[in-house]
């Protein structure tokens, strides 16, 4: 992590209220700036809208684990600059 040494930032205050999250499906990258307490559903919906995807046909993973729509960055311990991976649903039987 970089240390910008900014005098206004006291370490006691903890992480800033907003963070930048990259959402990528390996073809497209979209950057979102959201509050730490905002549920990720907003970002998932926005990504799907922009890419023309149906939200039920994709999976969002953070560090390899499935993200639920009502998770927030705080709940998942996300840091500024973290990435959400978007994967297509998989179905198999034969």
């Amino acid at each position, binding site marked *: 992590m970089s240390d910008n040494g900014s005098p206004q930032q006291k370490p006691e205050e903890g992480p800033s209220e907003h963070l930048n999250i990259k959402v990528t499906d*390996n073809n497209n990258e979209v950057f979102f700036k959201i509050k730490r307490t905002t549920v990720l559903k907003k970002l998932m919906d926005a990504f799907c809208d922009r890419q023309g995807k149906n939200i039920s046909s994709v*999976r969002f*993973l953070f*560090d*390899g*684990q*499935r993200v639920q729509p009502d998770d927030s960055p705080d709940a998942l*311990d996300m840091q500024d600059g973290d*990435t959400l*991976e978007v*994967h297509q*649903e*998989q*179905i*198999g*039987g*034969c």
Partner: protein
Amino acid sequence: WLNDAIIDMYLQMLVNHQRAGEGFKPNKRDTKAPAPSVHSFSPMWFKTIQSNANSIAGWAKAVNMTHGRILNSKMIFLPLCDMSHWRLIVIKPQERTIEYFDSLGARGPTYIRAAHTFLRVVLENRYVASEWTDVHEQRSSRQVNGKDCGVFTVLNALVQLRGEEPNRIISDDGMEDARLRITVSLLAGKLTGEMD
């Protein structure tokens, strides 16, 4: 047919049950914490290995498996769906074995290779190919139709966790009893007797 959400959620329930029995609590913030004894990675690992293998290191870090700590785990499940067919890789890091379970009876060299790539990314310079044994015999029970592979995939994981032989799984057309049990447990949010 089953989708990735069902497979993943059920396998998570199996490993969580096993971990709870061992008193293990995941702690992402404690970077010195030991790796879980059992773990199931997302079915998306296979496509990720093919397209963006290095990001698997982040997956492993999140579950304390980097810096060689994966080698302390007893059992790791890598479920995958390729060409509309569910299959299961089981890695036993302590024993250094990689086994491929396929209810259609195939040998799966492609998937075993992908598992080696997975280990290479996670272990970095601790990966020594010659330490690892690939199990070439296909031990999975066989599905008798064109729709049950997802059920066999999670049942193969279950019998491995129970320390039983793969032929403990009795094939029938539709695997209705197993499907019902899986459904009941998923709705209950916990296992309903599978590990008892």
